[in-house]
C-alpha cells in the first residue's frame, strides 16, 4: 500500500511538472500562429516580433516539455507494468499515433527555430501550423488514453483475459471527444492568458505611451481575446464533461459535488469542504435543484450519491475542493476577458486601471493552477480504479520497490529543470530586451 502511494506520488509529480510545459506547448504555438497571421494581414512589424519572441520562449519550454514527456511515457511502463500490459493489448493506437504527431512537432519545431532565416513567409506559417497541430494532436491522443481509463470500451474480459479486442472502438470510447476537447481548449486558453499576464506585467512597469507600451498592449489584447474565446469554449465543454460524469462515472460526480444521498432535485454545493464523518459538505453555498438540472437538463433528474457504493470504492473526497477551484478559476478568467474587452473596445478607454492590470497579471498563473487542479481532480477522482471498474490501481503498480529513492531523484531533477527554465528565460529576454528589437 505504501509503495502504491509513493508510485502514485512519483507519477503524479511527473505529470504535474510535464503538464505545465505541455499545456504551454499547445497554447503558445496558437498565439504564435495568430501573431504570424496578424502580421501577414496588417504588415505591423510588432506582430512579427511577437511571433519571434514567443517562439524563442516556446523553444525553451519545449526543451523541457519533450524530456518530461519522455519521462512520463517511459515511467508509465516502469511504474504501472500491469496497466501498460492492458494498454498494449487494447488501447495502443493513441500512443502510437501520438508518436507520429510528436515527430511532426519535433521536425517542424527544429525547422522553424533553426532554419527561420531560410524559410519563405509561407513556409514559416506552414511550419508553425504543423508545430501547433502536432502539439495539439499529442495532447488529444494522450488524453484519449486518459478517457479510456474513465470509460473503457472495445474489449471483453473472459477468465481474466482481454479478448475480442476492437482497437478503434477503444479509441473512440464514449468520453474521448469531450475530454480531449476539454484538454485542448483549456490549453489554448492557458497559453493566451500566460501571454496576457506577461504583457500586463511589462506594461505596469512602464506606464505612458511609449513604443514598448503599445507593443505589450497589442499582445495583452490578443491574449485577452483569444483567452476569452477559449475560456467560453472550455466552460461549455466543461458542462458537457460533467454530464458525461453523470452518465458514465456517477461516483466521480458524487465526489466532485460531495453528494452522499441519492436524490432527485439535488442541490449544487459551491465551496466548502466534504466532511466524511457527518456525510455532508460544510460551509458550502447550496443552489437548490441545480445539480439535477446540470446533470441531465431536468430538475427531477435523480443523481446518485456516494452511499450507492461501498466506502472503499469512493474517490478521495477532497476532489470536491479541486473541482470547485477549477470551475471557479475558469469562470473568473471568462469574466476577466469580458471586462478587459469591454473596457478597451466598447468604453474606448486607453488605459486599464491598476487593479485590473494586477488581475490580468494573475490570469496566467491562475489558468495554470486550474489546469493542475483539473488534472488532479480527473485522476484522483477515478481512484481506486486505474481503468474504471476493470482494474484497480493497486493491481497495476510495479512490484520492484525502491520507489522512494527514485521519487527523491526525480524531485531533484524537476527542481533543477524548473529553476533553470526560469533563469534561462529571464537571461534571454533580459539580454534581448524588446526596446532594442523595436528599433
Amino acid at each position, binding site marked *: 500500500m505504501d509503495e502504491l502511494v509513493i508510485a502514485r506520488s512519483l507519477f503524479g509529480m511527473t505529470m504535474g511538472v510535464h503538464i505545465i510545459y505541455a499545456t504551454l506547448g499547445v497554447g503558445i504555438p496558437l498565439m504564435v500562429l495568430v501573431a504570424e497571421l496578424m502580421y501577414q494581414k496588417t504588415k505591423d512589424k510588432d506582430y512579427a516580433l511577437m511571433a519571434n519572441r514567443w517562439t524563442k520562449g516556446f523553444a*525553451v519550454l*519545449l*526543451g*523541457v516539455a*519533450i*524530456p518530461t514527456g*519522455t*519521462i512520463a*511515457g*517511459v*515511467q508509465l*511502463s*516502469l*511504474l*504501472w*507494468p*500491469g496497466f*501498460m*500490459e*492492458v*494498454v*498494449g*493489448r*487494447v488501447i*495502443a*493506437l493513441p*500512443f*502510437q499515433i*501520438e*508518436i*507520429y504527431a*510528436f*515527430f*511532426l512537432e*519535433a*521536425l517542424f519545431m*527544429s*525547422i522553424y527555430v*533553426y*532554419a527561420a532565416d*531560410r524559410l519563405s513567409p509561407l513556409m514559416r506559417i506552414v511550419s508553425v501550423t504543423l508545430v501547433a497541430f502536432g502539439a495539439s494532436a499529442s495532447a488529444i491522443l494522450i488524453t484519449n488514453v486518459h478517457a479510456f481509463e474513465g470509460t473503457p470500451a472495445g474489449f471483453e474480459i473472459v477468465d481474466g483475459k482481454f479478448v475480442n*479486442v*476492437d*482497437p*478503434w472502438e477503444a479509441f473512440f470510447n464514449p468520453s474521448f471527444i469531450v475530454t480531449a476537447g476539454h484538454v485542448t481548449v483549456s490549453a489554448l486558453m492557458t497559453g493566451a492568458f500566460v501571454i496576457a499576464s506577461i504583457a500586463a506585467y511589462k506594461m505596469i512597469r512602464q506606464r505612458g505611451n511609449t513604443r514598448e507600451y503599445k507593443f505589450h498592449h497589442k499582445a495583452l489584447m490578443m491574449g485577452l481575446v483569444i483567452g476569452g474565446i477559449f475560456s467560453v469554449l472550455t466552460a461549455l465543454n466543461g458542462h458537457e464533461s460533467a454530464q458525461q460524469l453523470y452518465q458514465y462515472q456517477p461516483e466521480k460526480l458524487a465526489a466532485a459535488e460531495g453528494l452522499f444521498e441519492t436524490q432527485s432535485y439535488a442541490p449544487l454545493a459551491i465551496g466548502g469542504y466534504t466532511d466524511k464523518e457527518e456525510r455532508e459538505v460544510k460551509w458550502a453555498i447550496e443552489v437548490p435543484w441545480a445539480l439535477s438540472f446540470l446533470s441531465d437538463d431536468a430538475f427531477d433528474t435523480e443523481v446518485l450519491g456516494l452511499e450507492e457504493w461501498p466506502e472503499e470504492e469512493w474517490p478521495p473526497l477532497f476532489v470536491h475542493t479541486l473541482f470547485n477551484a477549477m470551475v471557479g478559476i475558469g469562470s473568473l478568467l471568462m469574466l476577466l476577458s469580458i471586462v478587459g474587452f469591454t473596457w478597451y473596445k466598447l468604453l474606448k478607454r486607453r488605459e486599464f486601471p491598476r487593479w485590473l492590470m494586477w488581475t490580468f497579471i494573475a490570469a496566467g498563473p491562475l489558468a495554470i493552477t486550474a489546469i493542475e487542479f483539473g488534472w488532479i481532480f480527473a485522476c484522483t477522482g477515478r481512484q481506486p480504479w486505474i481503468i474504471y471498474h476493470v482494474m484497480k490501481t493497486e493491481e497495476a503498480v*510495479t*512490484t*520492484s520497490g*525502491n520507489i522512494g529513492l*527514485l521519487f527523491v*531523484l*526525480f524531485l531533484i*531533477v524537476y527542481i533543477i*529543470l524548473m529553476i*533553470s*527554465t526560469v533563469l*534561462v528565460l529571464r*537571461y*534571454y529576454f533580459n*539580454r534581448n530586451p524588446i526596446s532594442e528589437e523595436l528599433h
Partner: protein
Amino acid sequence: MSEAFYAITLIWGLVFIYAVMATIDFGAGFWSMIYLNRNNTKATNIANRYLSPSWEVTNVFIVAIVVALFSFFPGATFTLGTVLLIPGSLIILLLALRSAFLVFSHSASENYKRILTLISGITGFLIPALLICVLPITHGGYIQTTNGVERLLLSELFTSPSVYAFMAFAISSTLFLSSLLLSDYSNVSADQEAYQTYRRDAILVGPISLAMAGLLVLTIRNEAPWLYEELMDYVPWLTGSIVTFAIGYLALFIPRKTGIGIPRLAMISVVTQYLLASYAYGSAHLPYIVYPNVTIETGFTDPATFRALIVTYIVAFFILTPGFIYFWRLFLKDKRYLKQNES
C-alpha cells in the same frame, strides 16, 4: 513468417535507427566538451551545429521504441518494465537533464555554456553505457523470480564482466560513429581543420571499438552460451561486418585532390558494419525477448491491435517521409546552413 516476427523486425529497425542517431548525438555532445578547452572552436561549432536541430528528432525515437515495444509486446513490457525500473529511471533522468540543457545552452551566455557543454558531454557517454545494459539483462541470469514476482539482481549485474564489455563497446562505438559523421559533416561544410580533427579521432577510436566488439562476443560465450551458440550460425554476417569495418577504416586513408580520406564512404561502410552485426545479434536473440521467460510469441499483442497499428505505421510513413526529407535538406545538405561561420 508470423505477425510477431514482423513486429519484432520493425522494433529492431527502430532500435537500429535510434542507435545510430543517438550514438552520433551523444558522441557529438562528448566531442564538443573535449574541444571546448582546446581552443578548437571550429570542431566544437561543427558538433553544435549538427546537434542543435537534431536532438529533438532523435529523442522522439526513444519514445517510439518504448511505445512500439509495449504496443506489440505487452507481455514483454510487464517483465521489462518491472526489472528496468532502476536503470530505466536513471536513463530517463540523464536524458531529461541532457536534452533540457542542450536547449538551454542555445539561449544562455558564454559563461553558462561551459557548464551546459559539460553536462551534455558527460551524459553523452553515461547514457549509452546505461542504455546498452538492457541487452545483457535480456540474456538471462540477472532476473530472479520469487513467488511470481520478478526482480533485477543489480549487484550481480554490475559485477559481471559481460556488462562492462557491453559498456566499453557502447562508449567506443559512440565515439567512433560520431567522429566519422562529424568528419563527414565538416568535410561537406568545407571545414578542413575540423575535418582533420575528427578524422584523427575516428582513426584512433575505430580499432578500439572493434576490439571491444570482439571482447563482447567472448563474454557472451561465457555468460550466455545459448546466445553464443545461435550467434555462431551467423558467422557470415559477422565476417561481413568486419569486412565493412575494414573498408570504412581504409577509406579514411584514400588520397583525394583536396586532402586525404573519403569520409562519406567511411560513414556508409561503418553503418553497414553495425547493420550486419546487429542483424546477426538480433536474429540469434530470437525467439527470446527476455531469456528464458518471454518470447515474441508469448509476449505478443492482440492480433486486432497488431493490424490496426500496422495500418497507422503505413499511413504515418507516407505523411512523415516528406517532413524528414525536408529536414534533411535544410540541415544536412543546405550549404547556407553548413557553411555559416558562427554556431
